[in-house]
């Protein structure tokens, strides 16, 4: 696996705002079918990092390659699905059914003047079924629960058939049983659909047994290839501060 071209290849990345280093000399690779959790204290640069990967922020120094290309030359954005942090919060009166929202995921795939094709319809239905929201397809998005909305946003990202799914704290404001179910679905996407998964989370304890690699970001990055050991590794404790111990204990409670 690791001999293939990485999906993301980040080398010596810096992100500096007003002389303050938000990210400092961060390097890593993300390969196809990776299943990665990113943790770190608030303000540590997790969201900044994924915003750079998505082309929403520009790095100050360093190199970021996506599928071997520099960000400015990269055009195949449909290969990357993004589920933002605030996805579970939506304006209750926005005129969109679940199906309307999932169809948005096909927008950049469709050519100008083209009508919705059979493939578009199949992909949208398929994405809704995979995220278990097909039965909600005619419901208004504003009437769904936080957990359901989160799965709809995920289905929208899946509709373009991405090779990698990036999620920023997907379970903020979602109850625990919905969270478990959500992670099970993510795991399935990773194992059955071979989709690479990268997500920022605070509730590492819930999923530590599942993830393949753990990135800890607090200005610098520590990449742990064995998450179970990572939660007690000293280097990470140093980066994460006291929270590492809390996380460790939190994990054992589950």
């Amino acid at each position, binding site marked *: 696996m690791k001999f293939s071209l990485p999906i993301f290849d980040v080398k010596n990345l810096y992100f500096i705002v007003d002389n303050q280093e938000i990210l400092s000399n961060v390097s890593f690779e993300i390969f196809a079918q990776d299943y990665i959790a990113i943790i770190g204290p608030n303000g540590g640069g997790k969201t900044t990092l994924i915003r750079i990967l998505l082309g929403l922020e520009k790095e100050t120094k360093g190199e970021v390659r996506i599928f071997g290309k520099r960000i400015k030359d990269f055009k195949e954005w449909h290969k990357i699905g993004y589920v933002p942090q605030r996805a579970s919060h939506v304006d209750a009166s926005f*005129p969109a059914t679940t199906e309307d929202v999932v169809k*948005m995921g096909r*927008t950049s795939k*469709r050519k100008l003047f083209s009508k919705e094709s059979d493939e578009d319809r199949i992909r949208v239905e398929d994405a809704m079924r995979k995220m278990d929201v097909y039965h909600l397809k005619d419901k208004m998005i504003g009437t769904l629960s936080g957990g359901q909305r989160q799965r709809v946003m995920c289905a929208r990202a899946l509709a373009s058939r991405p090779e990698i799914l990036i999620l920023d704290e997907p379970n903020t404001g979602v109850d625990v049983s919905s969270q478990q179910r959500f992670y099970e679905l993510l795991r399935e996407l990773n194992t059955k659909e071979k989709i690479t998964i990268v997500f920022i989370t605070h509730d590492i304890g819930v999923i530590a047994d599942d993830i393949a690699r753990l990135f800890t970001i607090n200005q610098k990055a520590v990449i742990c290839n064995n998450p179970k050991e990572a939660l007690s590794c000293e280097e990470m404790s140093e980066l994460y501060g006291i929270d590492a111990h809390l996380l460790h204990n939190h994990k054992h409670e589950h």
Partner: protein
Amino acid sequence: MLEIFEYEFMQRAFLAGMIIAVLASISGTFIVLRRYSMISETLAHSALVGVAVGLVAGYNPLWMAVIMAVISAWLIEYLRYSFALYSDAVLAIFLSGSLAIAVIIVSLGGAFNNSLFSYLFGSILAVSDEDLITIFTFGIVCLSVLLIFAKEFYFIAYDEEVAKTSGIKVRLLNFLLVSIVAIIIALSIRVVGSLLIGALMVIPTVSALQYRQGFVKTLLISLFFAIFSVASGMTLSFYMSLPSGATIVLSVLVIFIISLVANRR
């Protein structure tokens, strides 16, 4: 045939009104969903600068209104992006600034008269054959752009950032949408008037939103409300000799109140 259609000026006004109802409600849906409703008021005032220049310098006021509204729309978007200014503050600056400039131009040019009044509040008597051709031509172009990029505008309205990450050229499309809105507003001031066009863009959509339907149904409800208000407003204007902009806005307000009450939770 109804009495009001016996007059040629009414036929022209009705045709122009229907085209504007379609354009205002569709473009209005996108700007309301983007929480950018105030841009319609601001651009209407910018269009007034064009009207003032046209009246004083003897150019076609409608064409000048289109040009001024589009230039303002671009400047507003440029300022928002380049200086990261608050959107509503930029709109407020342009709104009052444009009105001040328009008033100074007409005062200096001695054009403060009935003609200006009709551009402020709309007039069914004012639509000429030339106006109708201009409204129709620009109208077809605007409608085509709105329909071609409807799915992109909708996605951007829902979530600009995710739209951007999926490869949609958000900035370019934002410029395109405000340009189209600027043209539609400029075209509308003949029938609805620059002080009242904002209402025709915003209220049909806000009324339609009360019915809590999906995107296509909301768009169609909004379209129906706009067409109905323009038709009833113009009829009222004809029989009661009132400015058409005011009667149209009053009709759409009644629809809004009914929608609000009927859908109260």
